[in-house]
């Protein structure tokens, strides 16, 4: 006899009414979570997973329409409750942890107040009692100096610390059910791991029924008891976590699984010969930013400014894929931008036989050979130019010629990235994120470069789109022999495609090794910590 579910969503549908009629966001969703259980809900962007969370919390926009279904918390249908009843249920019987702790905490109130208020409201404690209790909760979630943390403001705490506070608030009133909406997406890998460990610990201890929403199938398969896959508003499949990777039933699930980077599945072969001359090398390159202020120059203080990248020496061989891994602030993008002349640098860059000491030394030959693709497709294409104009530019600038007309050359470029030729007439806002990134790739390849720097180019894309882009990059390499300087924070992905991996931490190059050595015997403690923290899929 199965236990009574704490949370049960029954045949629930949701529409958003818009100018062009109603858009169906959730279609007859069925879910149930029992006490002590963790249900993972995995979906890509637009799948409706976040809408479901807000539907459960009864926080829907005015244009939401609910054509049918029920949402039961311990048997009671939340849809029938009044606003004041919902207010007393939220936070007390069901609570939520959000994705970005920086924006979901009030910047002008102390962390202490923001956790005490939950206790005052839901446990009827006095201000002082709530404060003490809050401190105890902060201690429980692993914060080292709870008393000090209570007095701090959000901007004075790190992302990990803030998320611990939010988790503490969610657990504070001892709710029956907690919804976790991508709680680690905004955090770096190591902190994410710590938060996930915290979650597991608390969940096991309290037995709270948890809905863990994420786009990361690998992660969810490790922490959930069961996994539900949601696609375009429908629950496509639901399995025990251990099964979902091993024996997926539906096509969509299979495709999703196939897109998840698995480090044990190498996608690339062809190591460059060991003694080859590097194509591009950085010799003790340092990049600073920030100017010395006026006051500094009056007082003759030495040029301060922060160091973005410190004395990096690195090289890339022809046709090699060099992966650069690090968290935000590690300096990987800073370095990459210096290599294409966007950041001033100290030190030398060697390009073949030549030595370059600054951006001014980068002539057209260099620029032709070394191209860069940026992370955000929205901002890397000029919104007021057509795709055709955008692609024509490098052709014209570098004087690329073949027998065809300009239009034909553009069509050919589009075809290389598997986009239809008539996209040339369109504007960027008419394309999806993945399509825009393809255009950016086509633009980079127009001059047939020797090296393409990819600066987190798939980080803002869904996993399935990411897989397609990676496939495209690899096939272009097959065709043109291009080398890649592939920057990412995704260790699983980079282990699939790189020959060698460089690890960066806070501006320093911490380790460079080929993939095997790095995985089996990393020499630097940071690399080891990173490898430990990254969730690999179960099964």
């Amino acid at each position, binding site marked *: 006899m199965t236990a009574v579910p704490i949370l049960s969503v029954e045949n629930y549908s949701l529409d958003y009414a818009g100018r062009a009629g109603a858009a169906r966001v959730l279609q007859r969703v069925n879910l149930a979570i029992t006490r002590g259980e963790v249900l993972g809900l995995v979906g890509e962007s637009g799948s409706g997973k976040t809408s479901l969370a807000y539907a459960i919390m009864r926080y829907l926009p005015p244009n939401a329409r609910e054509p049918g279904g029920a949402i039961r918390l311990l048997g009671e249908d939340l849809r029938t409750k009044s606003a004041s009843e919902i207010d007393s249920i939220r936070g*007390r019987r069901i609570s939520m942890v959000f994705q970005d702790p920086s924006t979901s905490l*009030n910047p002008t109130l102390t962390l202490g107040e923001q956790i005490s208020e939950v206790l005052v409201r839901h446990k009827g404690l006095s201000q002082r009692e709530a404060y003490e209790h809050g401190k105890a909760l902060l201690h429980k979630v692993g914060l080292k100096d709870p008393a000090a943390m209570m007095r701090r403001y959000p901007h004075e705490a790190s992302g990990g610390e803030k998320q611990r506070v939010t988790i503490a608030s969610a657990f504070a009133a001892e709710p029956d059910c907690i919804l976790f909406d991508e709680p680690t997406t905004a955090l770096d890998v190591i902190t994410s791991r710590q938060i996930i460990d915290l979650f597991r610990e608390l969940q096991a201890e309290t037995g709270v029924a948890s809905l863990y929403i994420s786009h990361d199938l690998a992660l969810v398969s490790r922490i959930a008891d069961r996994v539900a896959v949601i696609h375009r508003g429908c629950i496509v499949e639901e399995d025990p976590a251990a099964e979902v990777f091993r024996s997926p039933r539906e096509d969509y699930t299979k495709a999703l699984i196939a897109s998840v980077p698995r480090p044990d599945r190498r996608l690339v072969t062809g190591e460059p010969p060991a003694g080859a001359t590097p194509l591009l090398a950085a010799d003790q390159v340092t990049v600073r930013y920030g100017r010395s202020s006026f006051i500094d120059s009056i007082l003759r203080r030495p040029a301060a400014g922060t160091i973005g990248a410190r004395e990096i020496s690195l090289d890339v061989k022809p046709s090699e894929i060099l992966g650069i891994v690090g968290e935000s602030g590690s300096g990987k993008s800073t370095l990459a931008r210096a290599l294409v002349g966007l950041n001033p640098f100290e030190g030398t860059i060697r390009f073949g036989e030549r030595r370059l000491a600054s951006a001014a030394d980068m002539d057209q030959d260099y620029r032709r050979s070394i191209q860069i693709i940026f992370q955000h497709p929205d901002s890397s294409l000029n919104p007021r130019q057509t795709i055709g104009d955008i692609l024509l530019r490098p052709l014209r600038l570098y004087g690329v010629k073949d027998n065809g007309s300009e239009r034909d050359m553009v069509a050919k470029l589009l075809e290389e990235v598997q986009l239809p030729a008539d996209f040339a007439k369109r504007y960027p806002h008419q394309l999806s994120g993945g399509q825009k990134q393809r255009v950016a790739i086509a633009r980079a390849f127009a001059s047939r470069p020797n090296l393409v720097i990819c600066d987190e180019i798939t980080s803002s894309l869904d996993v399935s789109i990411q897989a397609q882009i990676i496939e495209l990059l690899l096939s272009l390499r097959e065709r043109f022999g291009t080398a890649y300087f592939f920057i990412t924070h995704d260790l699983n992905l980079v282990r699939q495609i790189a020959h060698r991996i460089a690890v960066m931490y806070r501006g320093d190059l911490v380790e460079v090794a080929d993939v095997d050595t790095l995985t089996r015997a990393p020499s630097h403690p940071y690399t080891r910590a990173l490898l430990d923290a990254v969730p690999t899929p179960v099964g």
Partner: protein
Amino acid sequence: MSINYLLKRILTILFTLFVVSLLVFGITQVLPGDAAVMLLGENATAEQLAAVRERLGLDASLAVQYLHWLAGVLHSDFGTSLRTGLPVTEMMFPALGRSLLLALLSIGLMLIIAIPLGILAALRRGGPTDLGVSLASYVGVSLPEFVTATLVLITLANPAFGLFPATGYVPLSEEFWRGLHHLVLPVLTVSIILIAHVMRMVRSELVDVLHTDYVRAARLKGLSPRRVLFRHALRNALLPTITIVALDVGYLLGGIIVVEEIFAFPGIGRELIVAINARDLPAIQAGALIMAATYALSNFMADLAYAALDKRIQYA
């Protein structure tokens, strides 16, 4: 608030005041019209004119004249009025006081009306209250002060109804109620403009804040709607109001010139107009400098207040 921040702000305002004084002096120097001729009249002889010029220091170079003037200003000596022969300081500072009274009363009235209405409009977004408030703001912002003043005059100062006096000023220290009676229309006029601006800003700030992630998180924590509104939303939405009020002082100073002129209110704006019409150079310079300095100072104080209240601006 760090010392660094304070120092920077002080340096900035000193620089501002310096530039303003340069501008005021520089622009007015282009004024045609010889001060000496104005004093002695058209029929003065060349020697007389030269003597007066020398006495007034008009024969020195511009730079020296400026420094001379600036030195005086720093001692609260703005020179002698060409029109009345009295020290300009005696004319201007009492006038400034009266203008400040007008300004403060107007700001007070504005705060009482604009903030609640702005809040209401934001809370009932899209409803009739919101529409009414937005419309009123739009219109209020598009009416130049003299038009508003005129409309106020026509309706409330109509001799036929005898509600309020059209012009005139009675010091509150002499006759309190009669003084107040005379103040109503100018204060009302200035307030209308301020209300239109601030109401709009408050509404838009609050609407933005109500859509933030942290307000959503607060609501989903099950906190009472009252607590969410007052402790979370309003606090953050009203913080920028300080800046807006400071900016409005600038508007106010510009508009006050017109309003004082229409209601014949003896404030600094009116003194300035009179000085302009009489080509009274020292008075023009003084009036302009004082007004600009008041604006700069009010911005300065608003900056400090904002920095003290918003914890994030500690390390500027």
